[in-house]
């Protein structure tokens, strides 16, 4: 037996050997290689990054991505919180049904969810047809291939990431705090602003950060509903890899996306309450 390492520690290391090697070879190594390729390894140069940061087209893609991710996150906070609040007020049975309903769209293919939005937002789609039949519109509105379509579909896909953490934060607030606040003379609104909202702030932060991280890397929705004008960083990476084979540019783009994701992910892990680390992502 090896000195200094107990038998159980050795067992743990052996358990970790295969998964660790797998993750290293097929996840860490490719990512490291892509970072290497972005600086033209072995002849290191930052030319592709300079090109990236000095070209207005690429700058505008970054701004667009940030703007859409921020707007989507804000909408998710303001739409998701009341929904989570209502679900928290339900009796346990109704609450679990509501949770199942919220998780249900995850079972539908991501592609199909976007496809339904395509059909709904087309010029001859559901929304335009409804508005025209109601007489509010004479000619169809252009709802597709713009940031509006991308935002709607992204909110549709990301809302559960907001609702579920907020819901678990709301349910963790001890029930007697609300009654304590009320018995001390606070009305419902005041109780919400002074007790519930501050106590659920960590849940909002976790949900918002998760929504923001996931929306930064969104590919399918902007590719399907955004058209060529609404490029996001992910669509630009795919374009450079699959269409024009510009590796240095593709990988400097993906390295910036990777770096920002990792930083935000570390913030997210730090925000997670210790007890729920295993439960959430």
């Amino acid at each position: 037996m090896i000195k200094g390492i107990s038998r159980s520690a050795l067992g743990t290391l052996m358990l970790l050997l295969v998964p660790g090697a797998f993750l290293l070879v097929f996840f860490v190594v490719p990512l490291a290689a892509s970072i290497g390729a972005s600086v033209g390894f072995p002849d290191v140069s930052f030319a592709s990054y300079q090109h990236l940061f000095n070209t207005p087209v690429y700058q505008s893609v970054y701004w667009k991505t940030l703007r859409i991710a921020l707007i989507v996150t804000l909408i998710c906070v303001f739409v998701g919180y009341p929904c989570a609040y209502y679900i928290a007020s339900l009796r346990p049975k109704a609450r679990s049904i509501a949770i199942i309903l919220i998780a249900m769209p995850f079972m539908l293919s991501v592609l199909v969810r976007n496809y339904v939005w395509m059909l709904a937002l087309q010029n001859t789609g559901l929304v335009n047809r409804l508005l025209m039949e109601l007489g509010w519109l004479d000619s169809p509105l252009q709802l597709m291939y713009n940031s509006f379509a991308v935002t709607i579909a992204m909110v549709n896909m990301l809302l559960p990431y907001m609702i579920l953490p907020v819901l678990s934060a709301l349910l963790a607030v001890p029930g007697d705090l609300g009654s304590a606040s009320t018995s001390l003379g606070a009305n419902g609104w005041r109780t919400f602003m002074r007790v519930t909202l501050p106590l659920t702030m960590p849940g909002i932060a976790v949900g918002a950060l998760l929504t923001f991280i996931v929306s930064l890397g969104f590919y399918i929705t902007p590719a399907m509903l955004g058209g060529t004008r609404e490029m996001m960083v992910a669509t630009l990476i795919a374009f450079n890899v699959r269409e024009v084979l510009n590796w240095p540019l593709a990988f400097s783009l993906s390295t910036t996306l990777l770096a920002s994701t990792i930083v935000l992910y570390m913030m997210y892990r730090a925000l997670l309450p210790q007890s729920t680390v295993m439960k959430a992502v």
Partner: protein
Amino acid sequence: MYSQYRPRHRFARILLAACAVLTIGFLLFPVLAIIPMSFNDAPRFELIPSNPSFEQYRRLFASPDWMEALWRSVRIALIVMAAATAIGSAAALAIVRLPSRWRPVVEASFMAPQIIPSVVIAASAYFLFIHFGMQGTISGIAIMHTVIALPFVVVLLGGRLQTLSPDLTQASSNLGAGPFRTFWHITIPQIRTAIVGAGLLAFHASFDEVVLALFLSGARNKTLPVKLWDSILFEVTPILPAISVLVLSIPMLGMLLLLLLRIRRM
């Protein structure tokens, strides 16, 4: 006894309920729209199909192209299910035994494939796979799908393993069972449902995956989602809703299986 979150004013209650119902309706819209659409002769938004027919399903099952893609996806997902469950279980078992100093780091590493954008992972895998001749192969797709399915297995099994009492394993080893015997006879029976659930999640993670498959499948080995993608963007296929419902029903069956397992245990 009402919840502390129940507003006292009737108006506030109604407003809140309306917000929640609208939000959940908005969330469910794609699911609710696609099912009736698949039983119509053409994709149209109708609550009740105006020209009900199984035409889409007939054409789907009669098309060798779609069937080939479907079986390819099922094959890949089965490989991923086996590989991710095995590798992920080992990882979860190790993570719950790690000292608290190392645990967050290792845990975060195994969760990373879910957080890092698929496009970033796909582009880097594409780059390496071209060098090693794995581009466009089924094994290449299966390997990368296993990477992104791992987090699901680790979360589910890790969560379950944490709730187990250490007394039973202790008793087993006190009675002279080795670690493998203890694992097989004591730990496995307790986490059986979680293992099945993790396997199903891994299957679904692969079966529904688009981005990695799009980069790695090449022209010959298109999976079902890649073929869906092509037909949505480049052709008009009136059988898309049928395919979607078919794809939707697979995780539904999985859920049913889990439910049955749970009922049998009770």
